[in-house]
């Protein structure tokens, strides 16, 4: 929704509120307006991809695959120039085509497919460009530079092209940038065991960040990304929190004890933010946690078969509860 419409909407809502406070309009009268047939469907339903868009994306994916296969089969036979042309050149070409198509209202959706190709090719394009220029692309400092450039390009292009796919790739590249900055700082400074811990913490941070970004997107024109961010955020956050708990006898008591709070927090948040991803992944990770605890602490004391029976009953309980929550809060969405 553009700024003008947003302002107009806020104005109407503000007037409606004032009128309502003054007793000039009742709740029933307002609701009666929405029961009128022919009104636009809620955006929550209309934001789903239609068949044509799905075909555009599949087509874009196949073009990317074709370029990869061509490169893989003939890489050793290609000269440096050809290598750069087929990767960096294809990236630039796809991006320009996407930008040109975006100018036409009826071709805007096809432009997404070209931005998809550009986004998939972008890391390959810059890596090949630097590698063929004689630089060592396996150093963390150069990888930071590559992803800093890509993050800037894709977030910067949002200024000109309001396409969700560009934002999606921008988030992916910013995440990669974060990873390589951490790699750069950690370097070889930590002992192997501690270096692994940084991976768990960085996924925890990413999960939290993605979840919050998803929450921010839900009221913006990029709301299509909200569910994706919630889903990946849940997996990264709960997965890393579980990994941080470790395994007996090297378990971390803090993370093992706090985990139920986190997982139930996510499940209850699903109601607040109206996200099925939170409910589904929260329930799945709760089941995972029950199985982990059973295997870790009860398999030897109670005996493996009895522990399995108890965990099976607990999982059934979680399933019943999750379905009940789903019916109560998400039945209409």
């Amino acid at each position, binding site marked *: 929704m553009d700024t003008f419409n947003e302002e107009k909407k806020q104005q109407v809502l503000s007037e409606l509120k004032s009128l309502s406070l003054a007793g000039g309009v009742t709740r029933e009268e307002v609701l009666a307006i929405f029961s009128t047939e022919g009104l636009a469907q809620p955006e929550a339903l209309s934001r789903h991809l239609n068949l044509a868009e799905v075909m555009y994306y599949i087509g874009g994916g196949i073009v990317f695959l074709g370029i990869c296969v061509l490169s893989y089969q003939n890489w050793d036979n290609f000269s440096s120039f050809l290598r750069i042309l087929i990767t960096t050149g294809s990236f630039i070409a796809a991006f320009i085509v996407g930008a040109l198509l975006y100018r036409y209202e009826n071709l805007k959706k096809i432009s997404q497919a070209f931005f998809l190709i550009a986004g998939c090719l972008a890391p390959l394009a810059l890596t090949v460009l630097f590698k063929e220029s004689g630089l060592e692309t396996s*150093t963390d400092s150069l990888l930071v530079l590559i992803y800093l450039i890509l993050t800037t390009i894709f977030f910067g292009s949002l200024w000109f092209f309001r396409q969700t796919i560009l934002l999606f790739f921008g988030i992916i590249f910013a995440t990669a940038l974060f990873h390589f900055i951490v790699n750069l700082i950690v370097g070889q400074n930590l002992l192997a065991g501690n270096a692994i811990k940084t991976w768990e913490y960085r996924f925890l941070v990413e999960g939290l960040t993605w979840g919050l*970004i998803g929450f921010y997107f839900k009221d913006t024109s990029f709301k299509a990304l909200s569910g994706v961010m919630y889903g990946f955020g849940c997996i990264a956050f709960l997965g890393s929190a579980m990994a941080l708990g470790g395994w007996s006898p090297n378990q971390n008591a803090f993370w093992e004890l706090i985990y139920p709070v986190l997982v139930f927090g996510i499940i209850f948040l699903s109601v607040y933010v109206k996200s099925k991803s939170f409910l589904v992944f929260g329930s799945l990770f709760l089941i995972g946690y029950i199985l982990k605890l059973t295997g870790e602490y009860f398999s030897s004391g109670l005996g493996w078969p009895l522990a399995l029976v108890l965990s099976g009953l607990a999982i059934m309980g979680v399933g019943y509860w999750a379905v009940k929550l789903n019916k109560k809060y998400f039945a209409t969405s």
Partner: protein
Amino acid sequence: MNISNGVNRKNIPLIIALCIPVVMIIVLAVAIYLPGWGKKPAVNFVYITGSNVYDYGQSKYTVSGGYIKQNPAPATSTIPYYKPVNTEAKIFLYNVGDNTASELTFEQASQYRLDTGQFSKDGYKVERGSGSGDFLFGSGGQDYNSWFIKGHNRSKKLNLKLDSGDYYNMQFLGWVN
């Protein structure tokens, strides 16, 4: 609540989301660089490169009671079981102060009292580098083929002298007491 306040409040999740990774990077940088500030490893160590095994897999040199000892060669057998192909074992003393390795004879090495624990008295450990590399070409990076002395969240690359440049061919014997 006016609209501008509403807009600001709406941005709070985004601001927090962007701050979290930045805070982690800052905290990590401080946690890594501060504890090791001004600290340097001071305890030298002894290592072996080359083949430290006789035929059939028995170790040639081991540390027992804090001193290096040479085990007797096993009796020859006609049954071919295990025959190492690497070169003769060489013993080195690594000086962490000037980052150099000097070769020792067995007699010289046996003069040193060795602590075989993983960590030195001043909290350092000799460890192989972890791999790096771009995910597209998987070149592995050079660090995986290097050895480091690590401690207090800092590391220093070692200039080990290794048999035939084989980076796998390094056996840590102990810290010099």
